[in-house]
């Protein structure tokens, strides 16, 4: 089962879970993803060691999509 999570004050929260071929769950996940983008979060998919991809649309084929806050120089 694929997951959409957000790194937050709890460590992380699961925002949505879906399986391929479940249109209702996929639709809910896409809506949750867009809501986080609207809140200023950035979607990232970890592609294994050393690689990550920023995504503007929820990749339904991914296993795990992580929402992160923007970073800044300290």
């Amino acid at each position, binding site marked *: 089962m*694929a997951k959409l*999570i957000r*790194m*937050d*004050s*709890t*460590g*992380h929260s699961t925002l949505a879970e879906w399986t391929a071929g479940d249109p209702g769950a996929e639709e809910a996940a896409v809506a949750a993803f867009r809501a986080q983008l609207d809140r200023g979060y*950035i979607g*990232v*998919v*970890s*592609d*294994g*060691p*050393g*690689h*990550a*991809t*920023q*995504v*503007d649309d929820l*990749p339904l*084929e*991914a*296993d*795990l999509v*992580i929402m*992160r*806050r*923007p*970073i*800044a*120089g*300290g």
Partner: protein
Amino acid sequence: MGQPVSGRAELPELAAVRWRPRATARSVATRGRIWTLWSLAHTVPFLGTAALLLSLEPWSAPVALAAVAHAWIIPELYAARGAAVVRPKGARHLRSEPVAQGLLGDLLGHEERDLQRDTGLALEPGALGVWLVGEAGALLVDPGGRRVHCFCVRVPDPDLPPSDRIAHLLLALRTDETGFATVANHAFAGMPWRIRRRLTVRARPALAAALARPIAGP
């Protein structure tokens, strides 16, 4: 991991620092050389003054000694500022930290996970060198291991547990390494021994591991 996904290769945070040229291996190396010259500019005049005083008047030894102390202390202060970028900062959030630590552990390989748990720093090999990512900054060991660059960079959310802060920086670094080096503020660059002395005892093995890691280079 699932199938490869398509996405953007540029950090969106770059929009906030459009005036900065994108970092490259060459620009990072140049910054390192500038820091070396800067350190020499603070050291050589004081050492020269000390030598001159002693040659003119041996009784001026105390003043010469003070000049030598200045030559030592000023670069040390810069190194201390540099090493401070990876010191633990902010609230520890003990209740949420184990959850965050689990996620960060999932993002790291076996060796890197153990190293991060022991030292608080996540080791990440990149094209610019080997990175050590902390809660509010990162060290970059350049190819060849001659210099360590100190970058100040953070996620401005004090409610996040420490491991989530590291995971934020790690994911941004993995998305766009040169973009990450552009967004981050370059705080210092110096020889590894200079940085090592100013790291916490806990963090020092991470620097040793980064120096031992072969670097592919750009």
